């Protein structure tokens, strides 16, 4: 206990505001070193347990009903947070609005990956399914922030169901519920990526479905399910198949190589299908943006955090090392262990890319907890009753719970505060007052979160000229804004630009490590903007700039 920790603990008692501050501090201090937090808690609990035993007081086991109740409460809390966020007006993460905006562009036939010299700047290295899945939801249910968030929420909730099904296939109902509950807490420790509309939520869902497919009795069913899941995962992120390694190992262990022969063409066909079936999904452009991003080097500070999270993620897998399940389950156990270890090692390195990080470990959670479930029924009694397990299990749960709680306090308070600004209503009101006119969101140095409602404008106009995260990625790779983008300013391609109120237009700076603080928009671009636009109005949250050469005068 450091003095700072004691001080924060006292603050917690004093007010909610400081509880929020404490959550923020804990996230940054201990939330980035979960393995060491786990080790510390294990030692502390071992000492406490020894003292407890010396005192002569007998330990009381948690009744089954209480275990089931607690597990149900945790799973319900996970679902409640996911659904609460779905209904909220706005996004929390910077990648979500980008995905929602590009998803709509895909739906209306515009390219997911524009050309290198295009005036628009919104292409990312996520695979096409990252945009096509939310794009389909927008097509089915109409444009809207809730509709854009819906696939992420469904993926997050479906993953919990699949994890329960996986655990139940190898252990009792009560154990399966308990493991699903711990999985839900662990998922909430990863910044809510489990249900955000980002590739990560879909990846984890696909990884879980692949595991379920791998446990199938018939080799052809396993091959088809795992093949489809692998194909989708490649098209979410190029590192996607690494998350399928445990499932692939299990397929080989259960059904042999004939299932691999079947699933390989299915995976390849699935991965190629968006590029072959849709004119607005260009493989050449996708590959160009991937190559650009691949030149961005690695960030060793992140690498150290990745390794810490990787070690933490492997903790629930330890009992699987010595479990001896009967028959083919033992082959599955060994294959899944090897696949998981290889995947975790590879992702630890790949996720050291600037802008990535330990969150990339999240899709391994279903495999890790499946292995835990697998080992539960076949551990020797002496091991199950050992001091290491009796201290280690609660220490793991406490560590993951502490990190998840800190994440959720920060997430819920911040999201609720931003939702209170009614950003989408503000933007929709402006768009309604100016029907048929072109408008887009611009970016400023402060209040970047206010721009997160920008898909509202994209839904109305079908145009998304600039995406700050995409420009930031290009800048990191040393790419300057192309002449066409600057010319578009002079041509007033977009009549209205809206910016968060408190800062000057296009003053946004990079938050990536190598280029931190560098302006995203060069002087030439800003001068062009200043020469051709003037401020005409303010909405509740945004300043409005109109093209000076606009034929239609500004009207409120």
């Amino acid at each position, binding site marked *: 206990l450091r003095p700072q920790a004691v001080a924060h603990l006292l603050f917690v008692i004093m007010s909610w505001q400081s509880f929020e501050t404490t959550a923020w501090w804990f996230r940054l201090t201990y939330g980035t070193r979960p393995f060491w937090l786990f080790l510390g808690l294990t030692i502390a609990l071992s000492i406490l347990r020894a003292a407890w035993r010396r005192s002569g007081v007998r330990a009381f086991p948690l009744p089954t009903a209480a275990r089931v109740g607690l597990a149900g409460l945790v799973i319900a809390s996970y679902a409640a947070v996911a659904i609460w966020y779905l209904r909220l007006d706005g996004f929390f993460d910077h990648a979500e609005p980008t995905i929602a905006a590009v998803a709509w562009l895909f739906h209306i036939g515009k390219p997911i990956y524009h050309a290198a010299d295009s005036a628009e700047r919104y292409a990312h290295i996520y695979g096409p399914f990252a945009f096509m899945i939310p794009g389909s939801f927008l097509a089915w249910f109409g444009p809207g922030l809730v509709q854009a968030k819906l696939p992420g929420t469904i993926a997050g909730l479906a993953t919990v169901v699949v994890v329960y099904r996986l655990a139940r296939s190898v252990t009792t109902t009560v154990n399966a519920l308990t493991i699903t509950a711990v999985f839900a807490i662990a998922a909430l420790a990863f910044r809510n990526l489990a249900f955000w509309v980002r590739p990560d939520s879909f990846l984890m869902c696909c990884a879980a479905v692949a595991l379920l497919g791998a446990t199938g009795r018939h080799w052809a069913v396993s091959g088809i399910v795992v093949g489809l899941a692998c194909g989708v995962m490649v098209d979410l992120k190029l590192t996607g198949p690494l998350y399928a390694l445990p499932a692939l190992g299990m397929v080989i262990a259960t059904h042999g190589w004939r299932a691999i022969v079947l699933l390989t063409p299915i995976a390849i066909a699935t991965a190629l299908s968006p590029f072959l079936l849709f004119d607005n999904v260009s493989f050449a452009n996708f590959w160009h943006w991937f190559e650009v991003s691949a*030149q961005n*080097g690695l960030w060793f500070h992140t690498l*150290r955090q990745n390794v810490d999270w990787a070690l933490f993620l492997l903790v629930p897998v330890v009992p699987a090392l010595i479990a001896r399940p009967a028959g083919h389950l033992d082959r599955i156990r060994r294959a899944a262990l090897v696949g998981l270890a290889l995947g975790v090692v590879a992702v630890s*390195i790949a996720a050291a890319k600037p802008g990535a990080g330990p969150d990339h470990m999240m899709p391994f959670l279903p495999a890790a907890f499946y292995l835990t479930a697998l080992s539960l029924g076949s551990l020797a009694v002496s091991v199950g009753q*050992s001091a*290491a397990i009796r201290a280690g299990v609660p220490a793991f749960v406490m560590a993951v719970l502490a990190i998840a709680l800190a994440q959720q306090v920060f997430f819920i308070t911040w999201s609720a505060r931003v939702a209170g600004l009614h950003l989408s209503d503000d933007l929709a009101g402006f768009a309604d007052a100016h029907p048929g006119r072109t408008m887009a969101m611009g970016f400023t140095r402060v209040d970047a979160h206010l721009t997160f409602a920008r898909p509202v404008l994209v839904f109305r106009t079908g145009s998304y000229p600039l995406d700050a995260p995409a420009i930031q990625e290009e800048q990191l790779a040393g790419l300057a804004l192309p002449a066409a983008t600057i010319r578009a300013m002079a041509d007033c391609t977009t009549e209205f630009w809206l910016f968060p109120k408190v800062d000057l237009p296009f003053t946004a700076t990079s938050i990536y490590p*190598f280029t931190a603080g560098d302006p995203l928009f060069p002087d030439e671009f800003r001068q062009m903007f200043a020469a051709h636009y003037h401020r005409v109005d303010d909405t509740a949250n945004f300043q409005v700039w109109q093209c000076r050469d606009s034929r239609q005068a500004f009207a409120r």
Partner: protein
Amino acid sequence: VTARAWRTLRVTWWPICVAFALVVAALTRDRVCFGGYHLLAGLDQQIALAWGVAITYVLGHAWLVAVYACVVVETGDVIPSSRAAANALGVASWQLALMLLVALVEYAPAVLWRGLARAAGWCGL
């Protein structure tokens, strides 16, 4: 399987430990002398070198995790007694000790190394 794993670990120790020690020394120097955020500045943007460093760093940890996993498998206990662990250990104890020493350097708080650096007058502290 475990015998093969031990043999692999014994052989791979030589390249992995040496490279891991170099990487950890470089990272620790940067953590102590320049702060913990931007480590190995310059090298991190040279793709081949950066990936080499990252692979080495992860393999160093993987080697230690693999030793632990093999001991657990051989003893059948998640935290075996020191005697059982010593009996099960399939690599030379000095190999493990050196690897643990490197890990200790990596995970010891930077403030400790900063104090040492200040006392020794290194990197302008």
